[in-house]
């Protein structure tokens, strides 16, 4: 400490180095922890993951993906709906009884909370609509997604 006290510049540099090392270690630890928790923390599956390694039936999980076009059907009782969730690689049939959010339509994103049934159908207790990162004005709504994106590219 005696040498440090003699020269204030050294003390300053010592604090700087010490603090940078502490920060690097801290951020590294936090990132490692977050990285390790990445898969366990969410209980969140996309269809291809559910097909590849299905969770045991009865365990509460969340399934996220797109509502397959042409798959949405209302059952005879009027409140039960059946549809398929797909991610471009796999599809999972889903059944749900209740009121759906207003953004829930065929082709839109959805997060279903529920469990896997024994017959490979996902039984949802709750449906949440999911918005993707694309924001497209209403004037472009009649275009397909690809067309709209092309227009956006051109106008950028």
């Amino acid at each position, binding site marked *: 400490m005696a040498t440090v006290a003699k020269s204030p510049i050294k003390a300053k540099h010592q604090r700087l180095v010490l*603090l940078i090392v502490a920060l690097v270690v801290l951020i590294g630890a936090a990132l490692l922890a977050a990285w390790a928790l990445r898969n366990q923390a969410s209980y969140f599956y996309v269809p291809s993951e559910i097909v590849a390694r299905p969770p045991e039936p009865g365990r509460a999980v969340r399934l*996220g993906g797109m509502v397959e076009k042409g798959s949405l059907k209302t059952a005879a009782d009027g409140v039960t709906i059946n549809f398929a969730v797909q991610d471009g690689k796999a599809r999972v049939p889903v059944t749900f009884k209740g009121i759906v959010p207003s953004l829930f339509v065929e082709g839109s994103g959805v997060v279903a909370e529920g469990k896997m049934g024994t017959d490979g159908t996902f039984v949802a207790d709750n449906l*949440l609509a*999911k918005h*993707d990162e694309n924001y497209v004005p*209403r004037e472009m*709504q009649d275009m397909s997604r690809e067309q709209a994106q092309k227009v956006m590219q051109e106008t950028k």
Partner: protein
Amino acid sequence: MHGFANPARFLRIARWLMPLCMGTGLVVAFAALGWGLFVAPAERLQGETVRIVYLHVPAAWLGMAGWMGIAGASFTELVWRHPLAAIAAKACAVPGAVFTAVCLLTGSLWGRPAWGTWWVWDGRLTSMLVLLFLYFGWMALSQASEAADGGQNRAPAIFGLVGAVNVPIIHYSVIWWNSQHQPPSITVGKSAMSGDFLVPLLAAMLGFTLIFAGVVLARMRAILAEQQAEARLRRKARAEVEAF
């Protein structure tokens, strides 16, 4: 940088910089909000509810920027013992917490129509809530350490740096745990957001950032004035005791 160590010099600059930031910020923010709320188009899927974005995203940005301000000031405080650093950190805390709360509230109001829920324990939402609690904890610690160690500010500075770990977690939460909240629409050099929404949004972010800077400068001036008044009172009391 140590030129600013002299509070008198800082006060001279802050005197004109504060109203400048505040004035331009208010004009830009209100113009951007007016544009976003009345001129910008509705979104294809979300309709009119998309307009919440013009408040939600600037609030989220400033909630995180506020903590980065605390962390940067804490670093300066710990390494260089800069006399204004602790004051700057203290000045960032309240506006940062307010913007974080605004972000959570507008997000909740937006989540109901867009997702069908007020709240979900998604990675982004949870890490943002943690940020709000960090602000509360930091403010409490800052008050307590002021009373305890007479302006040493060591404890809040360390807390400010440790808490900064949460900021990249908030940012990457939507990529690591992609569940309810969508991934970022605006990344460096690329936008998944049509220019009709993007331009007013960036204007709103600029406007609110200027307001934030104005508030921080105003609070720094107020804290400095408070400290000066306190020092004067103490000097006076000591003089009286000695005269007695």
